[in-house]
């Protein structure tokens, strides 16, 4: 759905994005992670034809954004961190204005989308009277009007309260389930990305430092909770047998790449340890992200 091939962007002497190659497959909820200034927004700007790449090719929905921008964006909706509208006009009028930049939109379609996002009854009020949450819904409505296949969400959770974040999460899941949209989600909220995304890319200082499915991250380390009668002695033995490479917090062991938990249990039992529990642990995104940032510092 989105393809970036060796894309770079220079702002003066500063390289905001460096040789970025990335693919967002159709049907995925794809997370784009990175700290402030990592190049996420610039990358999104290039996907939407708002920022011209200095090098490389950006393709959206099969079309080159630089040369065929209109065709590339026909079926794309986007929402930015702070939804901005013409505050002095009504929500309805704002939707008409934005939708007409794509194609004429019927009154029925406007009503349908307004109902879908839950703004029915407030569409004729001026946007300046809307709460942050209502603005977020209006932003979603304007993005959905052209019946997009791809939705780009740039920091959509910024400024939302916990209830708003929960609502946003449910909405994204609904969008995928009901409309089958491909979603690119750029966010600082690691827990949201972890709960929503099927695949992620991590950027640091303009470079992509990771791209892969969430399942790979969860299983990317071989950590296990180990409860035995003597943890230190057990770890010492397991290290000698090359079954464990590290230990953490007096209760976790990092298994060697080829080691299995049953091998660990067998080794410990044969050496008269009382094994109460051994449970493989999944790595969370935060730990993965932080280790990635540490490695790429």
């Amino acid at each position, binding site marked *: 759905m989105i393809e970036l091939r060796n894309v770079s962007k220079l702002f003066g002497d500063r390289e905001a994005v460096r040789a970025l190659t990335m693919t967002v497959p159709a049907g995925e909820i794809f997370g784009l992670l990175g700290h402030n200034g990592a190049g996420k*927004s610039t990358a999104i*700007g290039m996907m939407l034809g*708002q*920022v011209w790449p200095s090098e490389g090719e950006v393709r959206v929905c099969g079309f080159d954004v630089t040369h065929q921008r*209109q065709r590339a964006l026909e079926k794309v909706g986007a929402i930015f961190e702070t939804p901005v509208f013409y505050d002095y006009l009504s929500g309805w*009028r704002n939707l008409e204005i*934005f939708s*007409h930049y*794509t194609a004429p939109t019927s009154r029925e379609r406007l009503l349908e989308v307004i109902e879908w996002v839950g703004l029915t009854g407030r569409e004729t009020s001026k946007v300046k009277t809307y709460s942050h949450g209502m603005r977020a819904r209006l932003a979603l409505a*304007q993005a959905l009007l052209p019946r997009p296949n791809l939705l780009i969400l740039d920091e959509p959770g910024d400024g939302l309260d916990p209830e708003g974040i929960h609502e946003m999460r449910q909405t994204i899941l609904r969008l995928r389930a009901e409309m089958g949209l491909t979603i690119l989600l750029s966010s600082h909220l690691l827990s949201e990305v972890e709960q929503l995304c099927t695949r992620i890319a991590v950027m640091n200082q303009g470079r992509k430092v990771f791209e892969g499915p969430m399942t790979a991250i969860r299983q990317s380390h071989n950590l296990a909770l180990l409860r035995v009668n003597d943890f230190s002695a057990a770890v010492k033995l397991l290290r000698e047998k090359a079954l464990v490479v590290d230990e953490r917090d007096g209760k976790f062991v990092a298994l060697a790449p080829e080691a299995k938990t049953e091998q660990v249990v067998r080794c410990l039992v044969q050496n008269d340890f009382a094994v109460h529990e051994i449970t493989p642990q999944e790595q969370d995104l935060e730990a993965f992200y932080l280790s990635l940032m540490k490695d790429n510092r």
Partner: protein
Amino acid sequence: MMLWFQLRNELWKLFGKQRTYIGSSMFFLAQSIGILIFQFGQGPYRQLVADIRQLGVDPEHFVTNLTVASFLLVPIVYFLLPLYVSLVGGDLVAKEAEDGTLRMILCRPISRLRLLALKWLAGAVFSLVLVISLGIFSALVASAFFPSGGLFVVLPLDQIVGTFEGAAAWERFAIVHFFMTFEAVTLMSLAFMFSCFNVKPAAATILAISVFFISMILHDMPYFRDMREWFMVHHLYVWTHFFRPHIPWWRVGESLSILAGYNLTFIIIGCAAFQRRDIKS
């Protein structure tokens, strides 16, 4: 059809915000105050009568609604019109970029050139509406205090003295306003051009006004008299020709062609700058 919808949207945006009406309000206020001073302050009225008499014209016949409206019109058009059309022209692109709505628009499959064309057209419609409403309003307010009759105009800088009677007076008053639109549109285009660059709306407005005033100052300097036709303002004042007893059509045509050239240049430069720009939050 699509073009109409998009232009209508631009007009909604432009005429929906209070900022757009600052200029019009000040115009109407200035005209109203001026007309009231003419009516109730004895000094300006006596001066007008004296000026008319000095030119051998009957003051009774020419101290009229159109004469008073035209006397007030000239300074307003010289000074306030450039200010307010620049304010709107400078906002057209730069304000949307500053507010972030431009980024929302450019998520859509609309070309940047088409977007600019729509914005320029909306600015041109605004300029036309502003000038026409200015004329209608001044004529209406002046009619409340002064009788109908002839039109007497004197523009010393342009060495114009004109007297018109009956339908001809109204005709000239209307034509002058129509041709003032070209001045308004050109200044709007100048501000629009600056607005297309990566600048704040206020900067675009100030740059446009500065260019206008520099051009006006140089144009009016006695030492540059022989070079007056080289300055933009000389052609902006194309409407003054319609206060002459005999309209110099070839000069009108020349000025309109030059203004068309200015407009085209401003639009091309603005489009080129905007097309190259990166739109970021």
